[in-house]
């Protein structure tokens, strides 16, 4: 009945909508069900957390989640974890090289992992696999299609990283309704669940990133005032601080990779234990290394101070002071660490809110936004006004970055600026788009370069080019340039430098659809082959044990049936034909099975009588 209603409900032409937290360590999918945001089961064993790990096997199959995580030690270069850190990056980006022992395909532009089982894969495809898995899980929950999603991104993600995330959604067959900043999602979960009004701060400390957002909820408008953070600061740094102290204490100056890996694992466990106990220890090379909570707190103080600097800057950008903030929302696993909570409480002069699970809060907020955007009944409930995290600008003379749209501008936004030609007879103008806060282009992120040509030759200063930046509600930039006297115009969506082109995405989509068909056929056939094998084994066993129940003709007929199935199991490629053959042989065997059952019951009855006496 539910399915029938959905087909005829014009308001829900595309099935259920979901919110997805595509995390560095774990990913979650949530939906509003009966008016309540709820995280769905996303992985084996009923877990709502899907480890963001993807394994590419030599036979071409792909594992996602816990199963991929389990084979990680065995196949370290074919199993990609923390792929989020590679989104929108190129091999040339400094941070990329520090992120694990992967094999990369040399080349410019987007990063490509050399993995088993076929073509190298980009971070966009790897993220696409995670999203596809979440989509499948949600579809099995709803027993129906899921084709639209709100996907969250760190507030601090730049244009390339956002574009990459959106492309990953497309690859997974999802229409991305909105890219939503993670802290904004968290605030939305609190705001709408708890009915808050006023100024709020969201302190989001994950494994590898720190985000701070200042938001205000007034009269149905959720307005982000400012965002800030550090894209390379998180709980992993706490682990590193512990390891460094141990190495210092033992006088080890050149640890091996495996020593570091082992120590990091232990440090992480020790950190987690210190949430509940005052003292613990690491054991390294058989010698214990005791750590008190006080030691740990002191070691991470410099890291906390860094988050404090970001918080102060965000408050200043928002034009507010810490004591105007009515509540502080904690997000991210690292906010479970007691010293982090104490630090945040001190920073804002009040204990932080943590009554929604910090692991789930982002996905729940994304589900709410997905519902708000698609549910006609809720359209008027709340409007979200977000900001861009980093200034957008252009390269001008002398390699100086001129900002066109400053950070923390509300989106959508558009801004135009006129540039004049500086040489006589100049017919073209190079446009270099950059993102960041620094004075010099070289210190900022280069997003794209393009050339406006076709300017008619005239005296220097006479040619006037109007460059317009438009940022949409996803925080994604498009740039157009127009020569004023002739009207020559060029429009680009900023993506080539660190991402994939539209053509590449289309090709991947087509490939994945083809493969999806193949994969499904292969899987269904494999299932029937297993089924046939089971029937044949059972049959052989029963013929051996209970063959005396059959007449010679009956036995010969059955054996012929088994022989036919045996041959078909090896040669048949159509799973439906094989399935039909299995059903046929199964029917042939039924009288035999009944006789066996009778004998078994007879034996049991005999047994009972023996016992009775």
């Amino acid at each position, binding site marked *: 009945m539910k399915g029938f209603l959905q087909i005829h409900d014009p*308001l829900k032409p595309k099935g259920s909508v979901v919110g997805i937290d595509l995390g560095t360590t774990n990913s979650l999918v949530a939906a509003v069900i009966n008016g309540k945001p709820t995280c769905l089961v996303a992985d084996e064993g009923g877990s709502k957390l899907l480890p963001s790990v993807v394994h590419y096997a030599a036979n071409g199959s792909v594992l996602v989640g816990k199963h991929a995580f389990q084979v990680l030690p065995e196949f370290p270069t074919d199993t990609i974890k923390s792929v989020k850190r590679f989104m929108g990056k190129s091999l040339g980006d400094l941070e990329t090289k520090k992120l694990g022992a992967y094999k990369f395909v040399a080349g410019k532009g987007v990063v490509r992992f050399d993995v088993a089982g076929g073509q190298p894969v980009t971070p966009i495809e790897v993220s696409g696999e995670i999203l596809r898995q979440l989509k499948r899980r949600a579809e099995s929950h709803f027993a129906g299609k899921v084709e639209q999603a709100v996907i969250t991104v760190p507030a601090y993600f730049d244009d390339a990283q956002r574009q990459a995330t959106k492309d990953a959604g497309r690859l997974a067959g999802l229409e991305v309704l909105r890219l939503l900043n993670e802290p904004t999602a968290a605030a939305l979960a609190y705001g709408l669940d708890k009915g808050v009004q006023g100024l709020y701060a969201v302190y989001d400390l994950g494994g590898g990133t720190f985000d701070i957002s200042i938001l205000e909820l*007034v*009269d*149905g*408008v959720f*307005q982000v005032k400012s965002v800030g953070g*550090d894209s390379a600061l998180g709980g992993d740094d706490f682990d590193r601080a512990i390891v460094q102290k141990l190495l210092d204490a033992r006088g080890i100056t050149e640890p091996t990779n495996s020593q570091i890996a082992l120590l990091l694992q232990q440090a992480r466990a020790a950190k987690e234990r210190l949430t509940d106990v005052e003292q613990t220890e690491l054991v390294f090379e058989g010698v214990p290394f005791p750590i008190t909570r006080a030691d740990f707190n002191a070691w991470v103080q410099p890291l906390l101070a*860094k988050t404090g*600097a970001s918080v*102060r*800057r965000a408050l200043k950008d928002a034009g507010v002071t810490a004591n105007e903030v009515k509540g502080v929302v904690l997000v991210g696993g690292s906010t479970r660490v007691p010293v982090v909570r104490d630090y945040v409480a001190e920073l804002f002069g009040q204990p932080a809110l943590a009554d929604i699970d910090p692991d789930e809060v982002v996905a729940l907020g994304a589900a709410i936004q997905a519902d*708000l*955007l*698609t549910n*006609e009944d809720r*359209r*008027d409930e709340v*409007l*979200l*006004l977000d900001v861009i995290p980093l200034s957008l600008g252009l390269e001008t003379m002398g390699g100086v970055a001129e900002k066109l749209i400053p950070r923390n*501008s*509300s*989106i*959508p*936004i*558009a*801004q135009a*600026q006129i540039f004049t030609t500086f040489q006589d007879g100049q017919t073209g103008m190079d446009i270099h788009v950059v993102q960041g806060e620094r004075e010099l282009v070289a210190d900022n992120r280069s997003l794209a370069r393009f050339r406006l040509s076709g300017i008619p030759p005239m005296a220097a200063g006479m040619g006037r080019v109007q460059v317009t930046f*438009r940022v*949409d*509600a996803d925080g994604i930039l498009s740039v157009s340039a127009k020569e004023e006297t002739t009207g020559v115009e060029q429009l680009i969506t900023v993506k080539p430098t660190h991402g994939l082109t539209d053509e590449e995405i289309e090709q991947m989509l087509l490939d994945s659809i083809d493969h999806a068909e193949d994969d499904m056929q292969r899987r269904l056939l494999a299932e029937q082959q297993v089924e046939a094998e089971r029937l044949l084994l059972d049959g052989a066993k029963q013929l051996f044990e209970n063959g005396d129940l059959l007449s010679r003709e009956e036995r010969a007929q059955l054996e012929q049936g088994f022989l036919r199935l045996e041959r078909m199991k090896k040669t048949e490629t159509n799973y439906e034909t094989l399935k039909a053959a299995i059903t046929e042989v199964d029917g042939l065997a039924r009288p035999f099975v009944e006789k066996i059952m009778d004998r078994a019951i007879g034996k049991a009855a005999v047994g009972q009588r023996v016992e009775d006496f």
Partner: protein
Amino acid sequence: MTHFELFNLAPTVDLDVKALEDLHRKLSLESHPDRLPAGAEARERRLAAERSAALNEAVKVLRDPVRRAFYVLELKGVKLDTEQAAAKVKMPMDFLEEIMERREALEAAKAARKLELAQAMAKEIREANGQSLRLAQDALRKDDVATATVALGRVRYYSRFLEEVDAFEEELLS
């Protein structure tokens, strides 16, 4: 349409920022593309996005007293928003000398990594900046464009100085 016209306001340096932000919220609720029904046409969406973008840009300029003053001056025919435009304004020689000296002192403080010294200088500049802004606002109220132009010319230099101290502060803290 000017930023003021978008909000149906008369151009003025004196705005109640709280009332402006309330108005911005109200108008955003009316025109944001997210408020359109699911079946809205692409053209309708684009128009909504454009109007939303215009509102966001306008409130950004009008909310801030300094940017608002520059904008009112611009409406009176003097643009100071780019380096090229500002270079055409003749600033008094003694002011230029003074600001040059101060910038040199700031560079020295930065080189020595003396944050407190830089902050003390910023405090003086902030006061001077406030005075110049009030002078400019006063002149704009009286339609005295020449006085407002020079006063806002000073604000430009002061603002640049203060931004540099901010950047220095951030650099030391991070």
